[in-house]
């Protein structure tokens, strides 16, 4: 079975520029997550989708970050404008469902963003 795909793997931008990341979850996985992992820390959830609806975006900085999941499959995460503190690895994960035996999250390789 194919894993979670993310692109690009690396991105370098200047502050105040915009950037977008793409994620393709494992086929059939209803739940999709975006995490931000700052160097030396554990991942922090930014947003969680169930199919194409948002179930948790409480930690998403909505003045500059946006995310969508069209048709309940692929997802994009956008930052506009980027700040220096946005430098991090952005991880996408998916799971069959949110509860019980199906809540194991599978992670993609991540996108490493550097903001100069």
């Amino acid at each position, binding site marked *: 079975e194919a*894993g979670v795909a993310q692109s690009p793997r690396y991105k370098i931008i200047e502050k105040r520029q915009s950037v977008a990341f793409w994620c393709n979850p494992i086929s059939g996985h209803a*739940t999709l997550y975006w995490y931000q992992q700052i160097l030396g820390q*554990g991942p922090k*959830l930014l947003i*969680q989708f169930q199919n194409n609806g948002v179930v*948790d975006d409480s930690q998403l900085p909505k003045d500059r970050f946006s995310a969508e999941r069209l048709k309940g499959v692929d997802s994009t995460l956008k930052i506009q404008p980027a700040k220096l503190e946005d430098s991090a690895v952005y991880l996408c994960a998916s799971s069959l469902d949110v509860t019980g035996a199906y809540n194991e999250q599978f*992670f993609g*390789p*991540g996108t490493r963003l550097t903001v100069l």
Partner: protein
Amino acid sequence: AQTVTQSQPEMSVQEAETVTLSCTYDTSESDYYLFWYKQPPSRQMILVIRQEAYKQQNATENRFSVNFQKAAKSFSLKISDSQLGDAAMYFCAYLENSGYALNFGKGTSLLVTP
């Protein structure tokens, strides 16, 4: 929000030896899940082992086992017969049964020496 604490930033073990990584968490819930994830350098995060809070029996996966102490809110990972490929960052994570917000600790960097 639930807090997950990993008090060991770095650990070192010799090949073939056993090492235990510590994790404590804070929650008022009684039904939840705990996970250990492994993140090798520049590689993606993979699940090592998972524990359902309602199960008293400690989970095991080959050389990996946990010591789950629910009352103490402790969830340690034991790696037996350590191998060079075990070198990685290990993250402890907590998930409520509702399925929202997997909370991660800051991680423990494990070094395996020949």
